[in-house]
């Protein structure tokens, strides 16, 4: 059994606060906004127990170097957000705009390289033959005659999550009731007997392996009566709690996707109105879904989701994103566009099925890591925000009545509120909505449709495999298309020339080379610099660690290299992949794309708390 090395005994400083929060995203924004407002409105606000005589000490630590460096392509109904800000005015937030036009589109394969089933190919052929008579057929895409109710965001907003987070952060700091400190990753939870007693921050001034060097500063222990965990789907604290406390019976986190998006400046002459939303599917591979949202000032977000049930071991979000943008339906708008920003993140797509214990002694969980994402409606920000507000309501009630943050009290004050909320109601409808995709693309669509149209009463259930159980060796995945010898020859050539296996295999499958234009279609490395502005300060340990290097040496798929959103994981000289922290965008895709299970439920990649990453606030 693999054991993480024991931490050396270091004399750590500690700080006592009342509420310690890990991760600043929409969920924490909702929590802190609501709590801060309640504290401001309260005639006799609760006093700090950690610092008697002072106001309540609420401190949030965020991993990224700025609160605006989160990434998400967001169209949201913003019900929770509007509830928090009744006078919400989108014009006050850069890149925010109301939705004015929404379409669902099925994209056909214009080049013939997409791995489509025979049924799908037949369907595509039929559509093309009838294109002159089918309404809504345009530029190799079919516009669905209507947008299913469960997908509609017509009363919502398009947001840049980076700009939105900045706006929320400023409101919060103005309130003076909470503190938010970015650039400070939370390493782990602190445990005292059966309760969470706070958080430990990462060590600074260490080498790649975490050994102290010049300027060493041991990560401080932040002790708190309540720890609020909102560190997202791949956050180390949330995952640690899952490991320590286990998951509720029948719950598991097995469905994932990596979302990658670009924010672009559309060329002169493109007259799509701000607020235009396209939900897209079918291309570049049937399993990959896409989106296109138009912001004000002729900016647009364009992106894709590569799900864990896409079985290709040579999956790559970046090249697929480029092929997606080159689809004729989009390219007519994007030809001549310039990349402004770029980024990627993992999405926890198990939704309600991945819900952990929401509260325990001294802690509560909110946001995506708490299973709030709705996998049917394709919505996460609104739900995450709302879980934060529900927790704040409960926490304030406990503070007001002087009750301690025990499991029982938090369950009564928070979990019960959550069970009565629309997040729960809609999450239950969506619970099995995507199970059908485990069987195939068309079955998945049918399952979603059934769940959506019957309010979750009917859906296609399936045995959901763990991601590593789905990843095949390239020889198996491309059986019938390439021989073992052909794949081995490609693999050897890639090793010799330091080329990506996914690129070589996609080339061999007939995907054309990307016609780089130096503006939007640029190399992956240029996207890191020009779009993501990816940076990492020195003095922090590597946060991606290959636990048993010898296991990697014998791994045939090395999907971690192919999926890596920042090309931060590459072929290492010894056969074990090499990790370059300065290129990592912290999407966490490597975590769930490792095909090597070293013990039950644990693969060979550790994804720890780390600093640096994206430095673009337009995502």
């Amino acid at each position, binding site marked *: 059994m693999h054991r993480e090395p024991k931490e050396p005994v270091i004399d750590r400083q500690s700080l006592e606060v009342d509420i310690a929060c890990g991760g600043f995203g929409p969920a924490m924004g909702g929590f802190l906004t609501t709590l801060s407002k309640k504290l401001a409105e309260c005639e006799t606000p609760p006093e700090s127990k950690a610092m008697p005589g002072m106001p309540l000490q609420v401190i949030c630590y965020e991993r990224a170097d700025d609160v605006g460096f989160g990434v998400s392509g967001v169209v949201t109904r913003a019900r929770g957000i509007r509830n928090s800000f009744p006078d919400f005015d989108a014009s006050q937030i850069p890149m925010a705009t109301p939705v004015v036009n929404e379409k669902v589109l099925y994209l056909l394969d214009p080049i013939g390289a997409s791995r489509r089933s025979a049924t799908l190919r037949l369907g595509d052929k039929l559509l093309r033959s009838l294109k002159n008579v089918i309404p809504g057929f345009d530029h190799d895409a079919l516009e669905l005659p209507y947008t299913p109710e469960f997908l509609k965001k017509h009363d919502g907003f398009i947001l840049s999550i980076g700009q939105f987070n900045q706006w929320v952060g400023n409101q919060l700091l103005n309130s003076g009731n909470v503190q938010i400190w970015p*650039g*400070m990753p939370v390493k782990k939870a602190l445990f005292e007997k059966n309760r969470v007693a706070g958080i430990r921050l990462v060590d600074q001034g260490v080498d790649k392996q975490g050994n102290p060097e010049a300027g060493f500063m041991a990560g401080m222990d932040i002790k708190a009566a309540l720890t609020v965990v909102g560190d997202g789907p791949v956050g180390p604290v949330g995952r640690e709690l899952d490991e320590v406390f286990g998951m509720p019976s029948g719950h598991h986190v097995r469905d994932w996707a990596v979302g990658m998006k670009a924010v672009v400046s559309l060329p002169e002459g493109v007259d799509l109105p701000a607020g235009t939303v396209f939900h897209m599917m079918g291309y570049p591979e049937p399993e990959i879904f896409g989106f296109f949202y138009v912001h004000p000032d002729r900016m647009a977000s364009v992106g894709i989701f590569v799900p864990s049930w896409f079985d290709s071991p040579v999956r790559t979000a970046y090249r697929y994103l480029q092929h997606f943008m080159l689809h004729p339906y989009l390219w007519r708008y994007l030809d001549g566009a310039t990349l402004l920003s770029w980024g990627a993140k993992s999405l926890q797509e198990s939704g309600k099925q991945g819900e952990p214990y929401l509260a325990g002694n001294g802690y509560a969980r909110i946001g995506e890591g708490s299973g709030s994402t709705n996998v049917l409606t394709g919505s996460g920000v609104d739900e995450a925000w709302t879980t934060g507000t529900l927790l704040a309501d409960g926490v304030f009630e406990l503070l007001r009545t002087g009750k301690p943050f025990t499991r029982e009290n938090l369950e009564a004050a928070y979990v019960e509120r959550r069970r009565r909320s629309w997040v729960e109601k809609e999450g239950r409808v969506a619970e099995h909505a995507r199970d059908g995709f485990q069987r195939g693309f068309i079955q998945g669509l049918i399952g979603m449709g059934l769940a959506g149209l019957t309010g979750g009463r009917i859906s296609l259930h399936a045995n959901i495999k763990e991601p590593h159980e789905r990843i095949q060796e390239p020889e198996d995945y491309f059986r019938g298309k390439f021989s073992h010898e052909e794949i081995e020859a490609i693999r050897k050539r890639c090793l010799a020339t330091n080329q990506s296996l996914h690129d070589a295999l996609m080339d061999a499958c007939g995907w054309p080379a990307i016609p780089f234009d130096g503006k939007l279609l640029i190399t992956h490395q240029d996207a890191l610099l020009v779009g993501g502005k990816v940076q990492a300060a020195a003095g922090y340990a590597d946060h991606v660690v290959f636990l048993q290097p010898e296991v990697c040496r014998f791994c045939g798929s090395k999907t971690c290299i192919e999926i890596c959103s920042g090309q931060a994981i590459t072929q290492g000289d010894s056969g074990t992949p090499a990790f370059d922290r300065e290129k990592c965008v912290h999407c966490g895709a490597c975590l769930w794309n490792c095909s090597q299970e070293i013990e039950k439920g644990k693969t060979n990649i550790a994804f720890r708390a780390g600093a640096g990453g994206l*430095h673009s606030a337009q995502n």
Partner: protein
Amino acid sequence: MNSFQIVVCGSIVPDPLQTLEPVAGPTGPALKNEMMLPAVLDPWAAHSLYEAANLAKQFPGSKVYLVSLGPKAKLQQVMMTVGQKVPFELVAIDGPASGFTDSEEVAGALAAAIEALPGIDKTKLLLFGGWESASRGAGSTMQIVGELLGITDQFQGVDRITVRPDGSFEVLERIEGGKHQVSECKSAPAVLGWATGYLGEPRNDPQVGMMNMRGIMPSLQKAKPAQIANDGLSFLKVELPKQQRTTRIVKDASADEIAQEIAEWIAKD
């Protein structure tokens, strides 16, 4: 033992690697989407802040002020990061921080804010700042602030200050040819426009953050607007340095070949 009042003048600039695009704004040149770009404390000023904190630590009773002129909302954001680095008292002035503002007017606003600091004692005053700014390398602001405050001992391109027990100090200044000039100064007040110094960026310290935050938010809340009219300043032309990104992947090139190619590329400009 001497103590100092160290006033650091420093504002914000766009975070490195941001794509900057000059546009014509209603009051002159500006950067496209400037308010959307993430910002950092100007790196030159940041060096001087860290040097100031280091000096203050050596001389108990010293105090560090950070006088910062910039858009309040952006200053607030940047302080979330800077506030964790070293202890200081923020004096915020709400105004533009772009490279297109008149350095004399900026210096005027800074000098007025420094004059108004309660308990300021010019015999203990060390005025720190960057010798230039990452948003504009005019190198004039600190000199003008010094002049307005009547401080005649001025040093630019400073990499080190060594203070003696009697309060006199030695200053290492960068000069032409990659050399340093050593100057002696009897006592404060003095202006030190810093180059990079020799200190690394301090680690983020939660306790420093908590301590600073008690002063940062009140300072931001009472930040006075600065009247920067840019009168008498006109820009004939604004353009970015000519730069074309070209990326090639080359394996096993020798250092000589790489150096040769870089030299040829530089010579083209």
